[in-house]
C-alpha cells in the first residue's frame, strides 16, 4: 500500500511525554511564545525558546503565536501507517469546516480514502451518543459541581497541574474520538476478521493537545488510536482530491448534534440539560477555573471548556480561519443535519444501557500533576518565597520579558530558584551602571 501523503518534518523529537518540537534553527529568540504560554513553561535562554516539560500542557499556544514556525507538532509519518495492514482515518469534525461551505463531509471523507487509507470514519454519530451519555450522567450525578468536559486534553492537563482540587469536577466519560476508535476496532475485527493489532486507526487532529493525548493518554492505559496527523499537513492533498472528484451521490447521514462539536458551544448545544456554560480561550478559561476553585460556580451543572479561542475549529493545526470555519459548520448543519427534536442517532435508552455497562467510563482515575515546590523543605521554600518577593520589589514591573521570562514575577521566581541572575533584567543592569558611573564621577571630583 502506498500513501499519497506529504512529508512530515523529521529531526528533533519532542521532550518526553509531549507533542511539540522546538526548532532551534528557526527560533529567533523573540518572546511571543514565552508570553503566550498559559502555564509559564517557556523561557528564552541563549537566544532560543525552551519549554519546561514539567509545566507544558501541550496546548499549542506557542505554535499559534510563533511567527517563525519554530514549533511544530510531532505528527505521524507514512512509515507509521505502513506498520499496519489495515488503516483507518478518523478525522476530527473540524476537518469538515476547512474547505468552504459547498464541500460536503462525504466529499472530505472520500478524499481521505484517496490518500491511501483503507477506511474512513465519521465522528459525528459518536459525538451525538456522547451528548446523550452526558445528559444521562448529569441527571444521576451527585457532584461536585460544575462538571467539566474532558474533550480538550489541554484543559485536563491544566486542571491536573494548576487546579488539582478540581479533578473530581471532570466529567468521567471517555472522549468521543477514543470511544469511536474502540468501537470501530471491535467492529472491524468482527466484520472483516482482522487481527486487532493489524488495524491502525489514525486521528486527523486540529491541535497538538489531542495529538499528545494519543501517545500519553491520561485516563487510559493505552489509546485506542494509533497516531495522529494534523489537519494542516493534509489540507493540500485533500483539497486537490476534493476538486478532482466532485460531489458524492447519496451521502450517508451525519448528526447535526455531533457536527456542532467542532466549535465552542457545540457540545452544550446538543444537551437537554440547559444549565450549562461554554468558556473558550486561555485567559478566560483561567479566569473561570479560578472561580470554580473558589466554589463560585456550583450552581452550574456542566461547563464546556477549550484552551483554543473558539473550540476545535480554532486549533493551531487548522488552516481555515475560525470565523469562516464556524460559518461552514453552520451551513452544513442547516443543509442536511437532523432538526432539533428529531431525536438522537442512537436512541437514548440504548445509550443509558451502554452507560450502565460502563462503555463510556474513563478507564483510569485522573491524577494530579504536582509541580516541584519552591524548595526541598518548607523552610527552604519559605526562604525562597521571601527572596522572590525581595527580588520582585527591585524589578521594574514592566513585564517586558527581555530577560527571557514572561513577567517580572516569573523572573523573580527564577532568580529565587537560582535559575537566573537578577541583572538578566536590563532595567536592573542600567540602574547598576548608572550607580557605578555616579560613584566614579564622585571619586574623580574628590
Amino acid at each position, binding site marked *: 500500500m502506498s500513501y499519497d501523503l506529504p512529508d512530515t518534518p523529521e529531526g528533533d523529537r519532542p521532550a518526553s511525554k509531549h507533542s511539540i518540537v522546538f526548532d532551534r534553527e528557526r527560533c529567533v529568540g523573540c518572546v511571543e511564545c514565552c508570553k503566550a504560554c498559559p502555564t509559564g513553561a517557556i523561557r528564552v535562554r541563549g537566544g532560543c525558546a525552551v519549554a519546561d516539560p514539567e509545566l507544558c500542557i501541550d496546548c499549542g499556544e506557542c505554535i499559534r503565536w510563533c511567527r517563525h514556525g519554530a514549533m511544530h507538532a510531532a505528527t505521524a509519518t507514512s512509515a507509521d501507517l505502513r506498520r499496519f495492514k489495515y488503516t483507518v482515518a478518523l478525522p476530527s469534525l473540524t476537518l469538515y469546516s476547512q474547505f468552504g461551505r459547498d464541500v460536503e463531509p462525504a466529499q472530505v471523507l472520500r478524499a481521505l480514502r484517496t490518500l491511501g487509507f483503507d477506511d474512513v470514519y465519521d465522528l459525528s454519530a459518536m459525538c451525538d451518543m456522547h451528548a446523550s451519555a452526558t445528559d444521562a450522567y448529569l441527571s444521576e450525578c451527585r457532584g461536585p459541581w460544575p462538571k467539566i468536559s474532558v474533550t480538550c486534553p489541554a484543559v485536563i492537563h491544566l486542571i491536573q497541574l494548576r487546579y*488539582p*482540587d478540581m479533578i473530581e469536577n471532570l466529567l468521567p466519560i471517555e472522549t468521543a474520538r477514543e470511544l469511536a476508535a474502540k468501537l470501530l476496532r471491535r467492529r472491524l475485527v468482527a466484520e472483516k476478521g482482522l487481527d486487532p493489532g493489524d488495524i491502525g486507526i489514525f486521528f486527523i487532529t486540529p491541535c497538538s493537545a489531542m495529538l499528545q493525548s494519543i501517545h500519553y493518554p491520561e485516563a487510559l492505559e493505552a489509546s485506542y488510536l494509533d497516531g495522529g496527523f494534523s489537519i494542516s499537513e493534509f489540507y493540500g492533498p485533500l483539497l486537490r482530491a476534493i476538486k478532482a472528484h466532485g460531489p458524492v451521490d447519496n451521502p450517508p447521514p451525519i448528526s447535526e448534534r455531533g457536527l456542532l462539536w467542532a466549535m465552542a458551544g457545540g457540545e452544550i448545544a446538543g444537551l437537554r440539560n440547559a444549565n450549562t456554560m461554554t468558556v473558550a480561550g486561555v485567559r478566560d478559561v483561567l479566569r473561570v477555573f*479560578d472561580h470554580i476553585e*473558589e466554589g463560585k460556580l456550583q450552581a452550574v451543572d456542566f461547563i464546556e471548556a477549550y484552551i483554543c479561542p473558539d473550540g476545535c475549529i480554532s486549533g493551531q493545526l487548522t488552516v481555515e480561519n475560525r470565523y469562516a470555519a464556524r460559518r461552514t459548520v453552520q451551513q452544513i448543519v442547516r443543509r442536511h443535519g437532523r432538526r432539533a427534536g428529531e431525536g438522537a442517532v442512537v436512541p437514548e435508552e440504548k445509550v443509558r444501557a451502554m452507560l450502565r455497562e460502563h462503555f463510556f467510563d474513563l478507564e483510569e482515575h485522573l491524577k*494530579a500533576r504536582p509541580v516541584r*515546590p*519552591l*524548595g526541598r523543605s*518548607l*523552610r527552604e*521554600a*519559605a526562604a525562597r*518565597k521571601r527572596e522572590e518577593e525581595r527580588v520582585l520589589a527591585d524589578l521594574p514591573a514592566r513585564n517586558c520579558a527581555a530577560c527571557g521570562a514572561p513577567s517580572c514575577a516569573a523572573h523573580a521566581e527564577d532568580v529565587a530558584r537560582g535559575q537566573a541572575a537578577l541583572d538578566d533584567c536590563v532595567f536592573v543592569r542600567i540602574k547598576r551602571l548608572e550607580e557605578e558611573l555616579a560613584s566614579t564621577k564622585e571619586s574623580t571630583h574628590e
Partner: protein
Amino acid sequence: MATRIKSICKELGIRPDLIRRLSIANFEAEMNVIMYADQADLSFVVLPEAVRVVVADRGPGIPDIELAMTPGWSTATPEMRARGFGAGLGLPNIKKSADEFLVESTPGVGTTLTYVIRLA
C-alpha cells in the same frame, strides 16, 4: 486574600488537603470582615510545623463569643442572608477546619481571630 494565601501555599508545596482546610477558614474569616468590619489586618505565618493566620479587625466586636460559636446563631441582616451568607456557620466552620482556634473580642474595638493548621 484567601486566594493569595492559597497560591502561596501551593508554591511552598503544602499538602492539598491542608490547603483546602486553610482556605475554608480564610474564606470564612474574610467574609466576616467584609460583612461586619471596615478594616482588618491579616498576618500569615509559615512555621516549620504549622501555618498560623491572625485576622485582627476594627469592627463592632462580639459581645458573647460562646453564643457566636453556636452553629446557626447569626446576626446577619436579611440582605446578607439573601446573598447566601449569614447561616451562622462562619466561626464554627473555622473551628472545624483549624487545629487550633482562638477568638478574642472587645465590643466597640474589634475582633481578633487566630487559627493554626498543623502540617505534620
